[in-house]
Each structure stands twice: as C-alpha cells, then as structure tokens.
C-alpha cells in the first residue's frame, strides 16, 4: 500500500536523533566552525551513545556508517521491508539538521567504516570492529575520475607496499584507520583498483596537512603521503584478483549505499535553513499559507514555497533510494537521482534563505550563513552534481562511460 510517511516504528529513533541534534550539535555548531581543526571533544560521549543505537540492530540507524551492509535475510515473507537503510537515512537527516560538520566527524562513523561494513569479510569485520575508519580515494590528479588514481600497491611477501598521495580525507587526522584506494596494476585500469585498510599509526602513512575550508570546518580534511607504507595482505578488502569483467563494481558499489546518506545530509541542512527562515519571516509578519497560490501572496512566500517544494522532492527521492536498498531493488539510478536533487537543492535553498533573511542570513550571529557554506560540500563529495547527472543519463540512455563521457 502506497505510503510515504515516516515509518511508525522509526519515530522514536528520529526523535532521539533530533534530540542529539538539538542538545549536542546546535550548541557547539558555531564554536567548531570558528575553531577549525580543533577536535570536538563533546562528541566522544555521544559516539558511545550512537554505538549503542547502532547495536540495536535492524531499525536503529546511527549516523550512517553501520547500516549499509546488504542483508539477504529479509523477513521471509517477501513483503515490504523498512530496514536499516531507511532508518539510517532518517537519522542522518535529523543529525544534519543539527550540524553536518559534526556528523562528519562523529567517531567510528566514517566513510571508511561504510566501506568496511559493506565489503569486508567476517574476519576483517571482527578485526576492525569498534575502530574509526576514514576513506582515502581522491588524489591531486584524480578527483571524479577515480579510475585514474596513481597510488600503487605491490605485493611483497605477506605485505602490500603502498606508494602515492591522497587528499580530501575526511577525518583523516582523527580516525584510527584509513581505507586507501590503490591500484595493483596501473595498466589494468579500474579492475586493478582495490581498497586497503591502513592503520593511522603506520609510519608509512604521513600526514601532510589539514585543509582550510569553505564550510564543514568541524570536520578535519587531511592530505597524506604514502611512502613505502607496508600493510598486511589480509587488509585488502574484497577479492585480490584483478577481474576485468567485474571491473569497478567491487569498490564502486559502496557508493550506491552512501549516496543516499549524503543526500540525507543535504536534506537535513535544507530543512534547517527552511525552518529558520520560516521563523524569521513569521517575526516579520509573513506567514506561509499553503492554501493560496504562491502568486496570490508576497514574493517572499512564493519563493519559500518554491524552495520547500524542492525540499519535499529531495527528501522523498532520498527515502525512495534507501527504501529500495532495504528491499533489495537495484537503486543505483535512484541513489544518484537523490544525490543530484538533494545536493543542488541544499545549495539553492541555503543561498535563497540567506537572501530572504538579509543581514541575519549573512551575519555570524545566526547559523544560516554557516549552513550555506556547509551545504556546498554536499553537492561535491561522493560524486559531484555533474557525476550524478552522468550516472543518471548513462542509465536512462543506455550509454557506456566510453560513449557518454
């Protein structure tokens, strides 16, 4: 039966996440926006709580890193399922309504944790359990074209030796593990790209610098050099075979699971902007009226309605992508649609709200200007707007990446 409301049994989870956002994130939002590179120590206690939420199993979403493993178990009935993908997306929306930067630097909730949860075998899962893992994909010469990475991995006895340079590693300084993408054979293309779990304490993994950014300043963004960085061969995630048929699928499948999460982050920031702006407009005597057409009221109301309509679409696309994952339906198309729509909506709405609120929107006395800076990253990482459009277009048009470049 068609029903697009928040599932009843996730209501407590959503309320809990909202409380965390309200009581923990919002009060320290500005503090760590100003104190870039300073570790938000307030999060340690919270992380323990989130671990507890995630341990609640199916239905308890946590902040996003735990719940992206696809289970084939189901409930046996073959019926409609609302599982951890949907619950995670819902809780990420709430937490990012609080603060995206803080969510991104939540201990043990890194993208590397997502990768491990998605593709690690049971032995690895156990070995890396409870550790905070960052993800290192991008290189100075390879951004969106991640197949072009140059970091190499060479097997030497029982160890792989990694050499190369990695940038834009979220939580790279704070995490305990870094999942590094490297190629076993640069001439073999995508199929040779594998991911390796590297201990942060590994002497071959050298921290170069931390970036100074437009937004999400609470979250550290690191650059590394890998110099003869030796990792046990058991730290390779997935199969060590270079299978040209399987191609990029192995490492890329993580993205089908994480893109709805980034979309959810954008949905959360968007809602924060709209709620704040609605309150400011109300103070100015402008109420949002859903009955009258936008053209019948003030320009501000009309603008607000247009922005909220885009928000509604972005939110529902995000829930759709997660719901499909829960029900084992292929969702690569919908995941990219959600990411594209939510990413651009976040930026458009945040900038629009700043405009509507004038100097209150621009000034650091309020959080709108921060959200407008934070929002931009969500249309960039985990695949830019343009990459999402490419993925969507290729699927719709039946084109390969060689045909539609």
């Amino acid at each position, binding site marked *: 039966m068609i*029903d697009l409301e928040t599932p009843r049994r996730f209501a407590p989870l959503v309320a809990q996440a909202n409380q965390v956002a309200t009581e923990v994130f919002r009060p320290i939002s500005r503090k760590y926006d100003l104190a870039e590179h300073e570790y938000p120590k307030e999060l340690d206690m919270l992380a323990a709580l989130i671990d507890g939420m995630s341990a609640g199993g199916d239905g308890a979403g946590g902040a996003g890193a735990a719940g992206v493993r696809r289970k084939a178990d189901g409930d046996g009935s073959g019926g409609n399922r609302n599982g951890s993908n949907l619950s995670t997306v819902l809780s990420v929306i709430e937490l990012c309504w609080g603060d995206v930067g803080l969510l991104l630097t939540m201990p043990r909730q890194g993208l590397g944790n997502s990768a491990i949860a998605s593709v690690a075998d049971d032995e690895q899962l156990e070995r890396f359990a409870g550790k905070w893992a960052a993800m290192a994909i991008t290189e100075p010469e390879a951004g969106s074209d991640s197949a072009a990475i140059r970091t190499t991995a060479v097997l030497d006895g029982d160890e792989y030796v990694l050499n190369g340079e990695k940038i834009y590693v979220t939580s790279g300084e704070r995490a305990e593990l870094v999942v590094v993408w490297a190629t076993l054979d640069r001439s073999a293309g995508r199929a040779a790209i594998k991911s390796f779990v590297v201990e942060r304490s590994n002497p071959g993994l050298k921290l170069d610098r931390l970036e100074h950014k437009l937004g999400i300043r609470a979250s550290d963004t690191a650059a590394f050099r890998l110099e003869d960085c030796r990792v046990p061969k058991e730290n390779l995630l997935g199969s060590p075979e270079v299978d040209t048929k399987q191609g990029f699928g192995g490492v890329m499948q993580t993205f089908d699971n994480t893109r709805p999460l980034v979309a959810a982050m954008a949905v959360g920031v968007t809602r924060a902007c709209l709620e704040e702006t609605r309150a400011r407009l109300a103070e100015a005597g402008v109420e949002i009226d859903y009955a009258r057409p936008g053209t019948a009221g003030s320009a501000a109301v009309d603008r607000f309605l247009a922005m909220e*309509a885009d928000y509604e*679409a972005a939110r529902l*696309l995000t829930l759709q992508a997660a719901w499909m994952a829960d029900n084992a339906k292929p969702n690569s198309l919908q995941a990219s649609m959600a990411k594209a*729509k939510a990413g651009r909506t976040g930026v458009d709405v945040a900038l629009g709200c700043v405009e509507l609120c004038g100097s209150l929107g621009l000034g650091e006395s309020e959080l709108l200007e921060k959200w407008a800076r934070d929002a931009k990253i969500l249309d960039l990482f985990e695949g830019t707007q343009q990459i999402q459009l490419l993925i969507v*277009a290729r699927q719709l*048009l039946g*084109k390969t990446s060689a045909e539609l470049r």
Partner: protein
Amino acid sequence: MPGMSTAERSMGLGLRAITRMAGSEALDRVGLRRRVEKALFRASRDGFRTAAAAGRTFKAAGRLTGPARQRPSEAGTGLFDLEPDDEQQMLQEAVGAFAAEQVRPAASGADAACAAPPELLAQSNELGIGVLGVPEALGGVMAERSAVTGVLVAEALAHGDVGIAAAALAPGSVATALGLWGDADQQATYLPAFTGDEPPAAALTVLEPRPLFDPFALRTTARRDGDDWVLSGVKSLVPRVAEAEVFVVAASTGGGAPALFVVESKTAGLSVEAEPAMGIRAAATGRLLLEEVRLPAGAVLGEAAPDVYEACVQRARIAWCALAVGAARAVLDYVIPYVNERTAFGEPISHRQAVAFAVADVAIELEGMSLATLRAASRADQGRSFAREAALARRLCADKAARIGSDGVQLLGGHGYVKEHPVERWYRDLRSVGVMEGALLV
C-alpha cells in the same frame, strides 16, 4: 425549459454538433477538418455564446436514509511503501494500455478539434474511470475511497494525452464530489445517472478568468434569497462546458471559504462560451456564465463547510499534478529514443553532456513530482492533513512541468516545434496543468 428560447437551445445544440463532428475521423476522410476548425476559431474569437446544454431531468431515484460513503482506506501498515496494491496495478495496466493504444493515436486530432472523440470517452467509462469515487452502495466500483488510485489512473491516462484525460476525468470528478460531500438527496438525484449506461457529461469549476487567481477569493458570488441561493459570476476553462448536463460550481458566500453548488445545465441564467486554450484543448474548455442563477437550498454541497471547499481545491491540485506527471513521463519516454537516434557531428546527440544532462534533469524532476503527488494523495487517504503536501506537489509540478515541456521541445530542436512530433503539444499541456484549479478531483 424556462428562460431559454428555442433559438438559444438550438445554438447550444449547434456547438455540440460541431464539437462532436470535429472529433470524428470521418472529418479527415472527407477533407473537412480545416473548414470546421476555421468555423470553430471564428466562433471562439467572436465570443460565440450559447445556452448551456439542454440536459436531462435529474430526479431522485429513491430515498436514501443517509448519504453513502466509500470507506476510507485501511489505516495502513505504518510502513514506508512505494508499491501499488494489486487492484491499483491492474487498473494502472488497463488504463495504461488504453492510453497507449487508443488515446495517444487520437491525441493530435483531438487537440486540433478541441474535442475528445466520443468513442474514447465511452471506452474510458467502460473502464470505470468515471465512477472511481462513487460509493459501492450507489453502483460504484470501489468500496474504498483512494486518492492514490485516482492519481495512478490519471497519470496513466495523461501519458496518452492530457486533454483527453481531462475530458474523460471531468464527469467523474463531479461524481467524486457527490460521493465525498453529497447528502442523501443529492446522491439519489444525480449519482444513478453516472453509473448508468449513458453517463452525463459534467464538470466541476473553480477557476475564474483573471490574473493572480486565488481560489479562496472568488468573484463568483452566491447570495441567499429566502431559502434559495442566487449565483452570479464567470467561470473559466471548464472542461466539456457545452455538453455538460450538471456542474459543481464554486462561489463565494460572503463570509469564510467559498462553497460548492450543484447546478443543472438547464437552470435559467446559465450560458456557455467556447474558450479554447493553449493546452488541454481536447477537454473542450469554455466559460460558464452565471447570471442570477437561482438554486434551491438543497443545491449546496457539504453544508458549505470551509473544510469541504479546502479539500476540493487540494484534491483538484493533486489531480492536476497527476496529469503533469503522466505527460512529463511521456516527454521523457519520447526524448530518450530521439536523442539516441538523432545524430549530429558524427555521433548520437545523446553523447553530448548538454543533451544527456537535460534528459537526466527531466527524469530527476519527474521522479520528485511523482513522489510528492503520491505523498499528498496517500495522506488524504489516511485521513491526515494534506494541505501542505498538496500545495508543495502543486508548486513542484507547476514549476518543473513547464520546464520539462520546454526541454522536451528543446531536445528535438526545430523538429520539436512542428506538429509532426507530440512534444509541442506537451509543451502547451504542461504549462496548462500548473495554471488549472478545480475541474478534476482525486
């Protein structure tokens, strides 16, 4: 028929006859179409005004002890779910096949003729499209009321053609209004005709001809005179106005929200004018003019309660969103093979990002429109408030549908501008759906 001269009646019949003739394929065979269209154009330009359709006499078929209602949808499972149920899937498939095989091939002709082919309207009645909102106790086909089902059917039909869909759905919207808000007398008087062999044409009308139209600030007035209501005003873009035998008319009662009135076409003081528009032309739109139209006290629907009118406006918006989604999907389905087959500079134009990204954006916005529309409808079915969701779906569809219509033409370039391809019609239809208020209901 008091208040109407024979001449007026025959003019009404004349317009109906032209309308009907224009819809027939026989016109093409004998090469008469252009001449008839010219006549129609002149008629509309000169403000060709006629009496409303003579119409049948509606009489209460029996006495009901109370109004019959479809029961609300089951409370639901409390789970997020995008899967239509079995009954909805069957309807979707049946209407989808009808839209593809019958409606789409007739779309161009119906657009030119400003009329939907009567045999298609008859077939859509046979599919039960007109009685989705009629309680089972009164001969309807659905025990439960479901705006979601209404959305799925309207979308599937509009994938064939928006104008024909509007023409086919218009009478059913009057039946739905009577099913939702009619009292026992009103239901007994009108609904049997809708479930009978020759259901009447009928239309619900809210829209008025002026800029910045607001359905909550109507200029059409309903004045109390003793027990009677007296209505005056002008309604715009009323589907099948010339042949409709019964109308539901929105009018301001002075204080508070406007109310809905059941008005039979033969009532004195009613006249109609052709008002062909940029889009949804197959719906044979026109103006309904009310001059001191006197109605009995029992003509008002839902005891003039404000929430009845609000729900009517919102349900209409959801219905137009559904048409927008259907037509937008038609655009997407049409441009994909086109950009793959069309070559320029030695390769398919779909190999260019400027083209491919436009296609991707159509798909993304369309998906958002569809989900927002379904959410509004499903909230209505669950008895939740849906004013916000209907407004957001409407806003989204109004903005994105027009854009999708424009992009559909743009992707075909010059070919998109000529009538050899349907995208120019969708351009017109997709602009129209964001402007319409009332007229259809889910």
